[in-house]
């Protein structure tokens, strides 16, 4: 088992979670104001997963993400300026405005892209893990995917291959109980996606995805195994998205009850974590607030950067198709 997180690690995780939350809330507002074109899938509610996993990774470890990818990129080190610029379709975005929210990525940070195709990530992460294994420098690949995505054949093929080759890889299923508007009970006859792991010959672990420390510890062990050549792990994090599938509305949705949302909000991963840090006397309310304030300032600066950035010139339309 991985050691308990040090104080520094805890503070680091807190910072990552707050960065995600703040970014997403502001992005949601901008979307409501019509400032972000296209579809926006927000990560609010699931922050403990990204933070708990990513705290174990360096820029040389790879992740694949989903349509709900901002949180993963932020936790992996993404900067607000080029992220907002990408969401706005500006030339200074991480993808020069060509990708947008659904394809936001940064190769230097080891982030192989959000993905508009549900389930496309796991096979790509198999390839990244294969590179890590071939290169032999102890790096690993993590693939994030949803409960809904676990029904795609691509997940199955990737899981089987990763276990077969004992790749340095972790499958992180963020089970938020819904694929779009379909509750889990209407898309699979199981409760724990982790139950699929034995069918590939890998361990399956269920963890409370609202508890950053629990995620941190389970991910640490999975990554230890991965890096040690013991093969992949399927780590299922039970979590919830506080907003709608697309956009920010959380309450009054037809496919879930407000009570269910309220119950999960009782276990808001950031509030839970701050209470714990306060109890452990690592971070008091004032210092927590300071983190929020600094982050909000940084987010605002990022938005300003993005708004001041130029749109891509139409002359670049056909660039970047080929090397």
């Amino acid at each position, binding site marked *: 088992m991985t050691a308990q997180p040090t104080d520094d690690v805890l503070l680091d995780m807190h910072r990552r979670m707050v960065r995600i939350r703040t970014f997403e809330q502001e992005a949601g507002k901008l979307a409501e104001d019509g400032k972000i*074109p296209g579809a926006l899938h927000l990560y609010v509610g699931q922050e403990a997963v990204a933070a708990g996993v990513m705290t174990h990774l360096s820029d040389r470890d790879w992740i694949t993400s989903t349509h709900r990818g901002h949180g993963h990129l932020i936790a992996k080190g993404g900067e607000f300026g080029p992220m907002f610029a990408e969401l706005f379709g500006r030339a200074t975005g991480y993808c020069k405005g060509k990708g947008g929210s659904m394809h936001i990525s940064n190769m230097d940070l080891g982030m192989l892209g959000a993905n508009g195709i549900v389930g496309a990530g796991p096979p790509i992460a198999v390839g990244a893990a294969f590179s890590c294994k071939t290169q032999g420098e102890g790096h690993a690949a993590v693939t994030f995917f949803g409960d809904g995505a676990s029904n795609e054949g691509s997940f199955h093929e990737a899981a089987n291959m990763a276990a077969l080759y004992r790749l340095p890889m972790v499958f992180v299923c963020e089970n938020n109980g819904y694929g779009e508007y379909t509750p889990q009970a209407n898309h699979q006859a199981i409760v724990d996606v982790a139950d699929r792991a034995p069918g590939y010959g890998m361990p399956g672990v269920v963890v409370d995805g609202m508890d950053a420390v629990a995620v941190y510890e389970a991910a640490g062990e999975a990554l230890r195994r991965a890096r040690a050549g013991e093969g992949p792990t399927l780590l299922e994090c039970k979590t919830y998205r506080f907003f709608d599938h697309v956009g920010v509305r959380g309450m009054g949705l037809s496919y879930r009850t407000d009570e269910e949302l309220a119950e999960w909000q009782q276990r808001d991963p950031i509030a839970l974590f701050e209470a714990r840090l306060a109890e452990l006397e690592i971070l008091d309310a004032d210092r927590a607030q300071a983190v929020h304030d600094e982050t909000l300032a940084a987010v605002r600066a990022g938005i300003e950067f993005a708004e001041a950035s130029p749109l891509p010139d139409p002359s670049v339309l056909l660039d970047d198709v080929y090397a």
Partner: protein
Amino acid sequence: MSQAQTAAQANETRELPYVAAINEAVRTVLTEQPNAFVAGEDVAGAGSVFGYYRGLLDEFGDGRVVDTPISEEGIVGLGVGAAATGLRPVIDIMFMDFMGECMDEIANQMAKMRYMFGGSASLPITVLTMSGAGMNMAAQHSQSLEVWLCHLPGLKVVMPSTPYDAKGLIISAARDDNPVFVALNKMSLRLKGPVPEESYEIPIGEANVVREGTNFTIVTYSRMVHESLKAAEELAADGIDVEVIDLRSLQPLDTDTVIASVKKTQRAAVVHEAVRFAGLGGEIAAQIQEHAFDYLDAPVARVGAPFSPVPFSPALEQSYVPNAAKIVAEVRALLGA
């Protein structure tokens, strides 16, 4: 304008948006055909992310409007197996871009089963899917991949441009004993037009001359019909009197209507939203010069998307997607005007 459509417009002034016409068509299918059912991701509880199945779950129950897991290959397989064994599935592939996840069941099973089985299997499947760019949905939610399907013997492919056509083509597709793809257009969901309340068919394989003209033919389909009509208005000022043909059905293709028009006008362009290179426009241009070579005063022009994935940024997507201005420019360039 076809006879049926003219008649319909005379008798019927009710206007519906494209999305409601789709809804009404599927409701008609489920009502008329006891063996029909709808299956796909978020089609039941949510009524589709585009809203076109709203109300159907309540009306027909969860045995006939079926939410599926996110499993496109499984969904199409469900359609193939159910059709071969006596049902009439209406299968929903949310975005046409997702066909990559189920091309085997489409290309190797659905399209070929009847033939491979020597004619003994019947595959009455309707597939509804969503195509097209223009909504800043980037490279994986904006494609027009109809040429993949048109190249596959055993499939039929239609792409309605109006609410009227959407309803009639879906009903025809569902009555057809072959697999028929109905590729819808997302920018057109709110487009309004006359739609009769009763059930009616639009014959699959018949093009619609939506504007008559004397000295130029534009062959097009789906949303580009509207852009072509706009272009025609503009070109009229140059003295170019454009006939606009809405193919409606790409497979089978109504070559006769296209050729008859070009023989009259002697000049033509094919316009589609799909990537120009290796798009269906090549097939149509090739057919035109095959069948009307001696009539042509100029090469057949083609307008399509340039050779890149669909970019996200509105600034780029605008230059990417064909529109009236680009059609006008292409026609003018062709005619040296």
